[in-house]
């Protein structure tokens, strides 16, 4: 137990350091940018409605007169107090913008993450079980094709088919235009989330399916599957009882470690479907030089990714009986 806590502690410290690194790198990149946020946003309503203190703070972080280190430290000390600054475009505290967007993205990301994980696992298991035969070839071909396809183009294609051509689903916008946000029903939200979630799920399966296939092939060639066969277990029972059991853990770990890809995909997909999530906010912030928001989004995203990696690391300890029992004993 002590060992496990130590392990987790070390990982947490490393994660905090990495997050610090991410914020520094992002900050430096933004400082290096020739696009001056104050210049870009001068005269915009944003600056007009800000209090003089807020503008002073903004200048302190992003103005050219202060040295970068001082600026960064200022930003960091505010962040540690829970203040990520104020978004220039949305005229709201960055933290509340991120909060709203994250909630809206969360269900999209989660459903795509779960669907792609389950589907990918199933495809990998099937491909591995049918190794070399047509289901395997079909699945491998699909994975190859999908990993060569830009996700935003796939999103456009789905939009063309289901929204424009068939007219089954709405074209864009999470909230129907002209409707009061409060009047939007859950069903409406769902309808608008179907296509983005579908796109992300379709693209997300390739990686996990291919990895699971490899692992499944290893399992089916293992001694213990041979013995199970020798003891009269049926092929189906072998795949479900031994195959799935041994393939699930690596697949779950991989899925947790690949949070980054699905978030990256959501940036593009949300843009195509004008889905008001975190990804779209990142693009808007980037195009509008809303540096406080962009910085905030990057740090929050990285935190989610690192958390995913951490869970992947810890999962082995929780699920694998070898580590679980070994740790509880000594």
């Amino acid at each position, binding site marked *: 137990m002590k060992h496990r806590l130590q392990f987790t502690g070390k990982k947490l410290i490393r994660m905090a350091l990495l997050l610090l690194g991410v914020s520094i790198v992002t900050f430096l990149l933004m400082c290096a940018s020739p696009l001056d946020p104050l210049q870009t946003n001068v005269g915009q309503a944003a600056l007009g409605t800000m209090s003089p203190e807020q503008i002073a703070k903004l200048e302190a972080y992003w103005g050219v007169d202060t040295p970068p280190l001082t600026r960064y430290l200022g930003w960091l000390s505010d962040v540690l107090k829970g203040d990520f600054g104020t978004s220039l475009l949305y005229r709201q505290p960055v933290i509340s913008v991120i909060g709203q967007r994250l909630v809206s993205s969360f269900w999209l990301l989660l459903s795509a993450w779960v669907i792609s994980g389950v589907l990918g696992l199933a495809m990998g298991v099937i491909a591995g079980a049918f190794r070399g035969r047509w289901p395997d070839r079909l699945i491998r071909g699909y994975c190859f094709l999908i990993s060569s396809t830009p996700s935003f183009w796939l999103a456009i294609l789905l939009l063309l088919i289901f929204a424009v051509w068939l007219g089954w689903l709405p074209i864009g916008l999470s909230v129907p235009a002209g409707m009061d946000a409060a009047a939007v029903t859950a069903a409406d939200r769902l309808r608008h989330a179907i296509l983005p979630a579908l796109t992300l799920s379709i693209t997300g399966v390739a990686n996990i399916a291919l990895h699971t296939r490899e692992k499944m092939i290893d399992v089916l060639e293992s001694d213990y599957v*041979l*013995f199970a066969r020798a003891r009269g*277990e049926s092929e189906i029972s072998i795949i479900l009882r031994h195959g799935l*059991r041994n393939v699930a853990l690596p697949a779950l770990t991989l899925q947790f470690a690949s949070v980054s890809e699905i978030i990256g995909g959501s940036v593009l997909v949300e843009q195509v479907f004008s889905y008001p999530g975190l990804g779209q906010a990142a693009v808007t912030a980037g195009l509008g030089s809303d540096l406080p928001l962009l910085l905030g989004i990057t740090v929050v995203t990285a935190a989610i990714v690192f958390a995913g990696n951490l869970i992947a690391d810890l999962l082995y300890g929780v699920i694998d009986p070898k580590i679980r029992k070994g740790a509880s004993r000594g």
Partner: protein
Amino acid sequence: MEPILQIEHLSVYFTQYEHGPRSSAFQKRQLAAVKDLSLEITPGQIVAVVGASGSGKSLLAHSILGILPYNSHMEGKIRYNGETLTEKKARKLRGKEIFLIPQGVTYLDPLMKVGAQLRKGKKDPETKRRCRSALERYGLGADVEELYPFELSGGMARRVLIASAVTEKPRLIIADEPTPGLDARSAKRILSHFRELADEGAGILFITHDLELALSIADEVAVFYAGETIEKAKAEDFGKPENLRHPYTRALWYAMPEHGFRAVGGLQPYAGDDRKGCPYAGQCTACREDCRTEGQIPLVEYRGGEVRCLHPDEMR
């Protein structure tokens, strides 16, 4: 007594695929791992197959059980209880009448508890009871059912594997190198369990690389060399080297610790290599011209046993 297992002229081939850039360019190549093997086991009898590691002995076990890997196939005939043992029939019999006892703990699913594995997914009280009593027979308590394979000691793992065969009433047991890495005393203790099972009426095929161990328990011994059975002898024949029929068997005899520990010279040819004549021609002191040129050398009856040799009389 009617034999429980008859193997007639069994050969097992690997199909090796040479890989091409296009799947249509796969090139087949056949390698024989077991060549022209014949043997018989009657209930209550233990027959040992002795051969060096890597000589394809495991494939013999797999072909009887009908679980050859997808890239291999067999020729020849296997009869079980007088009837041809087809793959379909093997599928019905394995785990019911025919059992495999494998080498070690890697043959247990690392993520599944021992009890669950022995029960093969069934949960009815009858299965549970039988699993319980099988384990008990080998001194394994109820707590063992709740253990994962990695928690078993080496000896426990082996007893679990043997117990897996007595959850039903075994009629044929194939033990594939069941005691690797054990010292002679522990190995013999494990083997005594096989004797018990044979006395209860099962036929046992005992596959090993250890001649000494085989002799301590088997009634008959078939010696493998480069995929071929080169001699079949009674266990008593190993009392004196003069009773043995093949020069390789004699070399094995002299290699046993109590007979001088003299190393067996030469390298065994790989079973798959294309070659003519006797596989032992390179090492044999009595080798003649025709030993190298003859095609497949037949297994002939000789002095109460069988030998695959053109000139067994030369061996004096």
